[in-house]
């Protein structure tokens, strides 16, 4: 049997969830909450891993990864990609908001000019 089975399942599951997150429209509040929970988790895991490095090792062995440092690396990749996805999404959201703002500005400007001097033809 594949000794790394568990970590493989775990990592693949995480990336499938990321892919789904990319395509599904998320609601603002939930998205923000998930972001914050993830951040707190990262800190908690970091502190525990620093205080008890041997814990990391045994956790790694549990899921079939040889060393704790390897597990740390995998974890970092996951956090990094998750962060990229979340940032991209926020960026798109902001782009949409800027668009609405700029369009509203353009229209109000236009209606002001119109009520002014422009001759109609």
């Amino acid at each position, binding site marked *: 049997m594949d000794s790394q089975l568990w970590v493989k399942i775990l990592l693949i599951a995480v990336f499938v969830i990321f892919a789904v997150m990319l395509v599904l429209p998320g609601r603002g509040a939930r998205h923000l909450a998930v972001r914050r929970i993830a951040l707190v988790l990262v800190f908690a895991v970091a502190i525990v891993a620093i205080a008890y490095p041997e814990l990391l090792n045994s956790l790694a062995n549990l899921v079939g990864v040889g060393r704790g440092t390897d597990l740390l690396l995998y974890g970092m990749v996951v956090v990094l990609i998750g962060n990229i996805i979340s940032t991209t999404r926020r960026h798109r959201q902001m782009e*949409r908001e800027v*668009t609405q703002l700029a*369009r509203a500005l353009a229209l109000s*400007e236009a209606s002001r000019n119109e009520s002014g001097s422009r001759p109609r033809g």
Partner: protein
Amino acid sequence: MSASLAARTWLIVPLYNESQVVREVIAEARKTFPHIVCVDDGSSDDSANEARLGGAVVVQHPINLGQGAALRTGLDFALTQKGADFFVTFDSDGQHSVDDALAMVTRLSKGDLDIVVGSRFLDNRTKPGFVKVVVLKLAVKFENIMTGVKLTDAHNGLRALSRKAAQVIRIDQNRMAHASEIVSEIGRNKLRYEEMPVHLVYTEYSKSKGQSVWNSVNILSDLFLK
């Protein structure tokens, strides 16, 4: 008959850095359609002024937002105008023919449709290159499947809209994906649509500005990524 069809129509022309040609295009279109709104999408050249000189009303985006946003702004502006019953989206680079636009409005005025969409592939007048044909056909197949709207030309900028269509069509995609988005909005709102053959003039100018085939990749990802 109160006013002539052309007088009840607003041409909506998104405009981005086309100062070389826009004045001529607008002046030509004005011979038929008295009401034209140009949405200048943050051009860095003299496009807005040129459009004004051509005789269009110009609405200016403070920054570049993309053609989809420009179309929506143009529709919103024209919807506030008195006596505006029909709305035609028209390109600023001279690719579209005014006669086609008028024919589409005439068709729309019968009242049994919400939107008339131009198609390059219903007759043989337009001659795009081979790669372009393949890419456009693939895009069409894909959209038919995704939206349930059967059109032969996915990315034709010439469309005639009724008031209803102009009001309900949402355009969230700023960039080029708005063309696909309009198609899917037709499906979502169950608008009554029909295609009409139109002729696109691929001039050297429009070719040099036309979107590259690579853009279809960008369009696809824009549509799917949230």
